[in-house]
């Protein structure tokens, strides 16, 4: 038997299902919310539902957006011949923040994972192929994670896109920029050695 009111317990359970929130944090947040100014809680509730209703995946690239298609897809100043393939919507933000990549994006929505039952049909690969037909894309840049599943997904895409004659590249492995060698682990260092190139 819990001494806490049922709505409070429900709220804690709901918060506890959010990523990165354990039972302790859920309890603290719930206790804060039930004791807060009702207007403030109202604003939070409205913000939650509005955000969920208005933010959608872009039909074209899969990034998060309010407009269809998203601003990145409709921006004419972007190079339409370059397409960068990433795993998650947040990766788009990371790459865009660099300011170096001026092409367009495509979010796969995951990586091949036989262990978790993720197969090619579960990823947005059909959509990628449709874009290759519809848009003037000349190079596909694979920016997927470098674990086993990410690398296998990269080589899967390279195989699958090969017949289309589009150039497929992937991000380099190597040293973190602007730091000493001591900040790289042994595997990164050895990959950086393998990928060394002449200075010109």
């Amino acid at each position, binding site marked *: 038997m819990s001494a806490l009111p049922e709505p409070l317990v429900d709220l804690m359970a709901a918060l506890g299902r959010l990523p990165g929130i354990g039972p302790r944090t859920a309890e603290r947040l719930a206790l804060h919310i039930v004791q807060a100014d009702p207007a403030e809680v109202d604003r939070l509730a409205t913000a939650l539902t509005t955000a969920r209703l208005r933010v959608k995946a872009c039909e074209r690239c899969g990034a998060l957006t309010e407009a269809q298609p998203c601003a990145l897809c409709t921006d004419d100043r972007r190079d339409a011949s370059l397409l960068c393939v990433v795993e998650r919507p947040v990766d788009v933000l990371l790459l865009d923040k660099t300011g170096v990549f001026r092409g367009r994006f495509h979010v796969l929505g995951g990586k091949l994972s036989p262990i978790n039952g993720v197969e*090619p049909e579960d990823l947005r690969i059909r959509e990628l192929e449709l874009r290759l037909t519809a848009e003037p894309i000349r190079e596909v840049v694979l920016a997927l994670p470098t674990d*086993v599943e990410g690398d*296998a997904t990269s*080589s*899967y895409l390279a195989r699958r896109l090969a017949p289309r004659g589009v150039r497929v590249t992937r991000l380099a492995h190597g040293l973190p920029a602007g730091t000493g060698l001591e900040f790289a682990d*042994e595997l990164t260092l050895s990959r950086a050695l393998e990928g060394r190139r002449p200075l010109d």
Partner: protein
Amino acid sequence: MHLAHLRLRDFRNYARLDAEFSPGFHLLLGDNAQGKTNILEAIYLLATLRSFRGVGGAQMVRHDHKGYFVGARVVGQGTRQIRMYWSATERQLSLDGQPVRRLSDYLGVLRAVVFCTEDLQLVKGPAARRRRFLDLLLSQTHPTYLPLLQRYTAALRSRNALLKQSLVDAMAFDSFTQELVSVGNQIIALRRELVPRLSPLARLAYRRIANDAEELKLAYQPSVKTDFAIELAASRARERSYRMTLVGPHRDDLALMLNDQPAAQFASEGQKRTLAIALKMAQAEYVTGLHGTPPVLLIDDVMGELDVRRRSGLLPLLERSHQASGQVFMTCTEENWPRELGRRLQRWIVSAGSLRAVDSAPTP
């Protein structure tokens, strides 16, 4: 390198222990179930962050207590301070007062090789035991080996999961196969490089302990004979019926040959025990050769299993290690401690979770 100070709190049957150890030979004497092996376990834990008894942290906490603490001062090139705390909800590891962020920064501060009765399984047991022996040695000596091995295991699990599906996407299958092959080939290369360096060390140790003419040889027996990719492709039909990957470093073995005959089948019980010790001796020598200082040797209840002749062959090997300012910890019961080892050793009496030094006067 030697362990200068050991501090235990609520570790196994030790409520609190503070002990100073000099370099050299330490004999831990006591009846059964007094806590001799627990000391070795704590030292091994400091070196490798795991128990050689193959248990998790919870089993090492003293009964009815929350967590254990193990601390040490290690003297090698300079003096290092290690502090380790484990409980069900909290883990801490610090080196010289700084939390350890990357394991590769920590491993190597204290190196140890353990000899225990379980080692016999290296000779008698399945190939997995010998692969683990190679893996452990390569992880100790080759910083990129462990991540490679983890990557290989991940690729293997993915590929096996694909083989279990009724309809396999050929292109996805090829992609995971490519990962498996590229990582697998690096593992094979490192193992192939290691075994010929290990074999002469094991042969020498075996000859000294056994004191006879039997020739011990170690041979790497890779599952892949020439080309991993080709052999995988050739095994496709069998893979389909077994629904798992049948070729690769996960099927490797280390052959132990005595006079060119497989030891598991042809060696006597005594020869097998000797061989197991020789493998561990070779491991210690190999690590010494690479790093210049001998690892701390932890010897658990091994003497009782050897006849007098083999004991007299082993002891000089152990004694050599403290000539190079190394350190040996050996557990024994009162009855079977090697009295021939009278000179220059520190005896300790272990009883009910306490440790007491005994005058190191030579015994008659």
